[in-house]
């Protein structure tokens, strides 16, 4: 097993183009080391080596480009949680970063790794989906040709569901990511900031685990002159698959009673059994989601 740790991005691209077939890209390694207790031997039948991109400064930058804010794929979660610009551009992403896992893991885990692992309970995937972020991926070229870069909507990255199994019997169901182990996630691009734009993130974590949330929910939208113009919600978690919906709040006054009434009606009528994975029954999932949305909007309204 080889461990390649290039210092420059061009070096990493060279390695991927020349011999990408048998390599797996890795960065913070927190997911892999947690899941595979016999790492790397457990993966030796699939890969001959690991390409560690965690030290590539070019992939860790978070900056404003053409009125859009881009988040480097190897930026650590704690770097995101401390980013002053994110509070302005995407409050939901900042809030999601602040509650991801534990402080020790946030200092090591990268944004790209968090997204590529595809957990349903990932706060950052939920927030980025709600913000309608785009992702830039460098796909490995075929038979030694140079790789090609593509930018597409983040939700297109996830195709169906996958199941990982470790040697010691751990089974983990998550979103299936369409990139392969040799395709490099370069960055995430947030849409341009709109006037009156808002976003927030909320999670319900059962006490049985220090990390995983039963339900994570994120909302992004716009409001002007005291009226909500649009609001989009993404929810998922251990207990439910991804649910992407437009909230029926357009034209609603920014007043708690109007907002809560519409949210309650929405949650009451939604068929949560269709997105339920485990845990509480659909009716209770609806109440949990209503509680989280209510808390998020109350916080936004300063109640």
């Amino acid at each position, binding site marked *: 097993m080889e461990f390649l740790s290039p210092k420059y991005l061009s070096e990493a691209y060279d390695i991927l183009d020349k011999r990408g077939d048998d390599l797996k890209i890795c960065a913070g390694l927190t997911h892999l*080391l947690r899941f595979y*207790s016999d790492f790397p031997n457990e993966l030796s039948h699939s890969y001959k080596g690991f390409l560690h991109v965690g030290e590539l400064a070019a992939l860790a930058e978070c900056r404003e480009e053409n009125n859009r804010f881009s988040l480097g794929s190897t930026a650590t979660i704690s770097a995101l949680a401390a980013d002053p610009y994110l509070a302005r551009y995407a409050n939901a992403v900042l809030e999601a970063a602040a509650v991801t896992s534990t402080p*020790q893991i946030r200092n090591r885990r990268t944004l790209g790794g968090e997204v590529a692992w595809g957990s349903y309970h990932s706060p950052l995937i939920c927030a980025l989906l709600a913000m309608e972020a785009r992702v830039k991926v460098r796909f490995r070229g075929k038979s030694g040709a140079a790789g090609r870069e593509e930018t597409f909507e983040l939700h297109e990255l996830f195709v169906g569901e996958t199941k990982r199994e470790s040697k010691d019997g751990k089974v983990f169901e998550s979103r299936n990511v369409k990139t392969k182990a040799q395709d490099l996630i370069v960055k995430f691009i947030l849409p341009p900031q709109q006037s009156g734009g808002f976003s927030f993130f909320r999670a319900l974590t059962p006490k049985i685990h220090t990390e995983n949330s039963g339900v994570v929910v994120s909302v992004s939208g716009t409001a002007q002159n005291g009226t909500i113009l649009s609001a989009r919600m993404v929810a998922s978690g251990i207990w439910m698959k991804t649910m992407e919906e437009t909230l029926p709040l357009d034209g609603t006054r920014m007043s708690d009673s109007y907002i809560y009434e519409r949210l309650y009606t929405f949650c009451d009528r939604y068929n949560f059994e269709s997105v339920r994975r485990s845990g509480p029954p659909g009716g209770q999932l609806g109440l949990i989601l209503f509680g989280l949305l209510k808390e998020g909007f109350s916080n936004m309204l300063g109640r």
Partner: protein
Amino acid sequence: MIIEWSLNARPLRSEVSPFRKLLDYLRFDLKLLGTKEGCREGKCGACSIWVDGNPANACLILMGQLEGKNVTTIEGLNERDKFTPLQESFLTETAIECGFCVPGMVMTATALLEENSDPSRLQIRESLKGHLCACTGYQKILDAVEGVGLPPASEGRARMKAKR
């Protein structure tokens, strides 16, 4: 693979497999036993160390990731034969029973106190989220972190007053 890194402010050049976990290297090769081995999954926090001044789990770091990094363990935190104020506070508040989780807690809480010398109870709870303690219970540990800046226990009344 040769890794050039620094451990407790001493530069090191280690010939080691890049896939060796930092926790194993510290405990079995360097015999630095202050970093405890708990769950090996990053859940218990017993193996917390600092990488470039930030808390991290030694069980979730490979030696190959440490090229050019500065690692600090609990052994590097103390001056010779002298406790840090936080360690004193753990003793004062009797926040130690078996003591297994304490080195990790001290590493994380020291990092918090270096960033914010007067953290709120909620901030302390958040920062210690990645630690498990099976015997003491968390209240005394929170008291210990909160009580670092308080007068010593010998000034009992003054300490109680400052706590309120």
